[in-house]
């Protein structure tokens, strides 16, 4: 019951009430993992589903993300104590020449909502920036391009990862306004996310934790 309330509050983007409910959950004997999985992640899953169907829009996702980040501030130290790691680690960025970030930020939010640790290399990120950000434990490199003029840098980045000997151990996920499934197939990416919620679901599949 308390988890469904946390999920509902997250969907409504209510950070103050969220802290209160998490405290209540702990009082009732819930573990931080249960709050994360059955409350926050379940809530963000629902947010993602509503976004995919046009039931809610970007502002509502931002509000839910703010509530989730507030809750994670409470949970992260407790989760670290229990030694449970994230669902996976993702390097995320907008490729070279492209300064657009709202779509990338939404993907970051939805990945965190699935329990991923996100290493955000920002916007206008050259191939070597992605390469340098890939350290031990990174399973996915996710790239975004809004402009058809910058989309080729996705291919360049894949090539740079390959030259650095990293491609075989990584999954590549792509998205953004200038990217399509056909483009994704052509450049040899492993997954194309048409929106932020889809990207998070695909990321779970790529690390073998999908539904």
């Amino acid at each position, binding site marked *: 019951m308390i988890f469904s309330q946390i999920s509902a509050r997250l969907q409504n983007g209510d950070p103050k009430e969220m802290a209160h409910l998490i405290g209540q959950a702990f009082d009732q004997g819930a573990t931080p993992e249960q709050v994360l999985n059955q409350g926050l992640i379940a809530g963000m899953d629902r947010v993602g589903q509503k976004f995919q169907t046009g039931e809610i829009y970007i*502002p509502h996702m931002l509000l839910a993300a703010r509530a989730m980040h507030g809750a994670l501030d409470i949970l992260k130290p407790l989760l670290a104590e229990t030694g449970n790691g994230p669902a996976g680690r993702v390097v995320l960025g907008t490729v070279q020449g492209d300064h657009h970030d709202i779509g990338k930020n939404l993907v970051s939010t939805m990945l965190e909502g699935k329990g991923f640790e996100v290493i955000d290399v920002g916007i206008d990120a050259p191939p070597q920036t992605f390469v340098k950000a890939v350290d031990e434990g990174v399973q996915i490199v996710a790239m975004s391009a809004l402009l058809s003029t910058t989309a080729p840098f996705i291919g360049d980045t894949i090539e740079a990862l390959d030259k650095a000997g990293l491609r075989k151990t990584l999954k590549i996920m792509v998205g953004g306004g200038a990217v399509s499934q056909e483009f994704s197939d052509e450049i040899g990416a492993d997954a194309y996310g048409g929106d932020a919620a889809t990207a998070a679901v695909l990321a779970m599949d790529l690390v073998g934790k999908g539904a």
Partner: protein
Amino acid sequence: MNGKKRILTALNPGQADQVPLYIHGINEAPIIGIGQQITQGLPQVTDFRKMKDTEKFKVLDTLFLIHETFDVDGFTAFEIGHESPVDDQHVKDEFGVVYALSDFGLPVAKGHPVKEVSDLEKYEPPNPDPGHLVLLNLARDRFKGDKALFWLMRGSFVRCWRLMGMENMMIKMFDDPQFVHDVAAMVLEYNLAQLDLLVGEGLDVLVIEDDIADKNFPLIAPDQFLEFVNPYNRQIVEAAHAKGLKVVRHSDGNLWPLMDILLDTGYDGLNPLEPQAGMALDRVKDYCGDQLCLLGNIDCVDLLPNGTPQQVDATVKKAIQDAGQGGGLIICSSNSLHPGVAPDNCIAMFEATRKYGRYPTP
């Protein structure tokens, strides 16, 4: 029938002697790429802001020449001289918004001067500067009434999010709606004052450029659009109509969830009708082709950059077949002619419009 008459007839929406042709926006690279086929002495492709004055004049003259050579019916003017350099990579506009320059596309707003109420209290909004209308003046003198003169005016949503930051504005719609309204009212005042200047300079068509959607959905909910954006744009539409102008609504993306609101607002035209965003020309024509003119839809994401002139020719022919019946269609690309488009494909689009556009259409 000259280009101006052709455009204004189509925007009625009615049938001219032939389907008009229009360039909504065009970057330096395609101006130079197309221009190299019709003139000489063009500079290397670089950001217009970084060109010498002689190079700027050559590029603008080439832009006019493209419109004359390919019989483009309307000319799009926009502000020039409203930006000042911050450093090699950034410029600031008259509102104090800072933009990151890119060799790959339009500058992207990154520095937002009105994030909080306290910023607004200290903020001195600019007044429209007649000197920034120089491109409109040059076009009017060059074309002498032969072509319709369009002006790109940033609409309420774009101006507001550039001032506030997009994510911040979206959150403020929940946290402090009055703040969003106050910024929108300030922007409206600027736009209405600029409209007065434009009317005095001989404008024919106002384009309210206000991107509100991505290829999947609108960026904000329809109820938020109705509360925070459309009332302000509607006032511009009504003021422009009162002054005898036609008004075109430009927005990227999937506009279907907002379509009835846009139709109710009284726009004369809708642009750019991105095929990748579900804005199929035949579907839009069926839904509202009797209410407003359709401008756009020739794919600039894949077709114009990567297709062949033959494919462009076939696409223009199909667009005219899908939406040309009875008029109310103006052919142009599905967004700006950006640095990635192939000049030969742009020329194929221009030529195919003339080849297939004469009424009765094929």
